[in-house]
């Protein structure tokens, strides 16, 4: 009951389009000049002190990007983006690569405090009951702090900004960077390859179970800035890692671009669990402003019996274009995708997954829950395919959509392709509204329409919430209630 009351209180206390993380931080920053050309790419590379091969890699990506066209197939509509009117690099002004938190701008730390991100290890250590989470915080384009590094190093786990990994572990970065999402993969991934600024790098060595949750917090602060982070996670044979990602941005009238790339590599018997709570600024109630979120996330189950699981709670962004995928290459590998996508106001979501079954006896499972309210459009787009050699492949897909209000839309576009008779695919989708009976039942027992809706929605998404690490699940549940604000009545 306490949890319910908390949800209700939270819902009541917030105005229709209140976005809790809508503040911006006044902080001095170093920016590259507006626009994009080879010099900017070289500038970014030089700022990071990158080796020549990486500079060349970026330039190659940039040149290819020039020949590519923006994808238009998704069910999202937005004015043309002027890619020359953006800043491609912005960093808080401070000594590059802070050695400890004391060197980090206190203003920045206050920002993360407001966001509720536990950056200070001692604070976390002081609270005996809190589960420990190592955090890498990325502010605009650069990583500002990574916690618990020493303790992770003891276990052999490398967890650091990718720009640092380029310096300290070049062989790993060079081997795996772009091996899951090739440079030429798609328009936004190619752009990211050219201008990516920072992100997290994780390597879990053979047989190691990562001793704590790893987490990255992304924050866009500057105006007219694109954020292009790049995350690379490698789980070596028999290892396990759970990784969380959260995102927020200040409220601004204009749209901001976010084009990230995440690559996961799981070798034999390794497991990666990747959870996202995406809460970028969604724009105001009239559809002004908000983040354009064009993200390429892909996991490669390269080894035998490897396992990659994506869990996402998408409540933010004006536009979401995101398909976390699994390439099930290793025999016996498994892929999972659990998603909650909530859209309200004028948000547009086009999200889903790809499960490509290449190896024998590979399994995948897709559970997608879409909730649309207001004037939003929410699309699930997914692909499941079995190649000729994928004997014994299995897939189960369930896509459910819930509609709240007469002006929103919910769409389902699955592609299910089988070239192997022993592959067994099952797909199910439903669309419905919150039933009057359920609402009546809840309201008759004293809940307001809004409380009753929140209760029913939380039940609707429970299958996915259960997949999230505990502290994220609580946060996500609240987030969903808040996102649906003002959608009832």
């Amino acid at each position, binding site marked *: 009951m306490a949890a319910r009351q908390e949800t209700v209180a939270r819902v009541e206390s917030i105005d229709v389009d209140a976005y809790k993380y809508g503040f911006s931080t006044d902080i001095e920053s170093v920016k590259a000049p507006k626009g994009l050309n080879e010099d900017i790419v070289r500038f970014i590379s030089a700022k990071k002190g990158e080796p020549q091969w990486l500079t060349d890699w970026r330039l190659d990506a940039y040149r290819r990007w020039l020949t590519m066209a923006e994808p238009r197939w998704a069910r999202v509509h937005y004015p043309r983006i002027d890619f020359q009117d953006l800043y491609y690099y912005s960093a808080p002004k401070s000594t590059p690569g802070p050695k400890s938190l004391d060197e980090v701008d206190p203003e920045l730390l206050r920002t993360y405090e407001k966001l509720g991100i536990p950056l200070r290890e001692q604070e976390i250590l002081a609270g005996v009951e809190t589960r420990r989470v190592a955090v890498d915080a990325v502010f605009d384009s650069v990583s500002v702090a990574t916690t618990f590094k020493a303790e992770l190093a003891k276990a052999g786990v490398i967890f650091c900004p990718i720009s640092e990994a380029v310096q300290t572990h070049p062989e790993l970065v060079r081997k795996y960077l772009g091996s899951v999402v090739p440079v030429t993969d798609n328009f936004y991934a190619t752009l990211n390859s050219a201008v990516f600024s920072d992100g997290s790098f994780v390597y879990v060595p053979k047989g190691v179970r990562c001793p704590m949750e790893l987490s990255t917090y992304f924050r866009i602060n500057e105006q007219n800035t694109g954020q292009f982070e790049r995350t690379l996670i490698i789980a070596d044979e028999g290892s396990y890692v759970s990784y969380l990602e959260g995102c927020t941005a200040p409220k601004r009238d204009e749209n901001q671009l976010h084009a990230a790339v995440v690559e996961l590599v799981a070798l034999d018997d390794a497991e990666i669990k990747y959870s996202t709570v995406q809460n970028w600024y969604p724009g105001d109630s009239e559809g002004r402003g908000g983040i354009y979120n064009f993200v390429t996330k892909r996991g490669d189950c390269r080894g035998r019996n490897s396992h990659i699981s994506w869990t996402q709670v998408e409540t933010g962004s004006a536009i979401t274009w995101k398909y976390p995928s699994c390439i099930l290459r290793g025999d016996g590998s498994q892929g999972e995708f659990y998603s909650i996508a909530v859209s309200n106001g004028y948000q547009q979501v086009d999200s889903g997954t790809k499960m490509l079954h290449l190896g024998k006896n590979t399994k995948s499972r897709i559970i997608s829950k879409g909730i649309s309210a207001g004037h939003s459009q929410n699309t699930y787009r997914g692909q499941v395919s079995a190649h000729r050699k994928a004997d014994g492949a299995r897939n189960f897909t369930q896509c459910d959509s819930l509609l709240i209000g007469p002006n929103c839309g919910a769409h389902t*576009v699955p592609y299910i392709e089988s070239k192997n008779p022993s592959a067994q695919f099952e797909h199910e989708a439903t669309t419905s509204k919150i039933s009057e009976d359920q609402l009546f039942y809840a309201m008759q027992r004293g809940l307001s329409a809004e409380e009753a809706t929140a209760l029913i929605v939380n039940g609707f998404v429970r299958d996915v919430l259960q997949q999230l690490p505990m502290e994220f699940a609580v946060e996500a549940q609240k987030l969903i209630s808040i996102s649906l604000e003002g959608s009832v009545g």
Partner: protein
Amino acid sequence: MIKLASEAEATLSSFYEEMRDKGAPRLRAAGWASFSESGVPNRRVESWHYTDLKTAMGRPAPLATASRAALSLPRAHDSLRLVTLDGVFRPDLSDIARLPDGVIAQSLRDALAQGEPHVLSALASADIGAQDPILALNAALMQDGVVIQIAPGAAIDRALELTTLASAEAAQSTYTRALVMLGEGARATVVETLGALSSAPAQDNCALVLRLAPGARLDLVTHFSGGVDQAIRVASLLAHLDAGAMINSFALIEGEGLNRRQIFARLDGENARAVFNGATLGRGRLHADTTLIMDHAKPCGESREVFRNILDDQSVGVFQGKVIVRPGAQKTDGVMQSKALLLSEQAAMNNKPELEIFADDVQCGHGATCGRLDKDQLFYLTARGLPRREAEALLIEGFANEAMDAIEDEQLRAFLSDRVSAWLSRRISR
């Protein structure tokens, strides 16, 4: 207008020059303009992603010329037959004189020559299927076909069979279009038969336009057969249902070559109901594509689709089904199901069931599965002494029959069951 680049399109352009003054100039011009914008669709056209018509078509076969052949066609069931042979309506092969009261039939050619406005406007697809280039091409190039008008309130007991056949010894292109209009409260059963009498790789583009006035009911059975490896058949069905109208349809697709059946159905009045079921029996290198757009434009509509793909050898099945619920089409109820059985290592299935929903008080769902015969069930049957192939046949038959349950006409259902049995016994004897 974009200039047509390929050789195929240049040939089609010469067909258009030949047909443009043969009635309904505005409909033809609109169709040609729409086709010219996109050309022959290839894999890059989203709705044709799994059927690369451009590659399959290569160079279009010459436009069909009327054959004078006097044929005697066997009858598979007791229907009143209206025959279009090699792109031309053949009254001599048809049961025109035996049509019951309340049914008026004429050739499309005559109807276009007379130019009755209500027939012309019914022939135009309006905005249903407007995006499809091959349907547009059909409007531009239609040679002949049948126009049937059923009087309001008429209840026609005997089925009307629209037979479209190709008999030429050399490959030809045919463009035919049929129109069936049911007056208010009318009832009828239509059988749509597409077949080939020769082994030439014909290229057929046919369309059947159905207009159901309020309260009308149509039972439709479609049967595709014949066809050879290089043959191409694209059959479009346009169904427009007014308030309270109902269509109950089933299609059996067998034969060879490239087949695409595309259905554009719109429930354009309240309380309309549509059932589109179908089964595909794939053998050899059959490519069978069923693409369905079920458009709920008005409230309280109901739609049901059950499709079964049974794919042997190197056959490829495609099912693309989209249920659209337009803004305001509240209380819509839609359920779509597509199941596929892969019987050989080389068979393949592509399923793409879609929902596009713009109203909140609706109930829509779809299911799609793909796999092979259940091992446990096979074991159960073989353990009881059935040879393996016969055990498979029994299971396949049951699987196909699930899609045939809604056929009300006993005689037609028996005919289709026989076709399934014949297909299965050929499989057993191999």
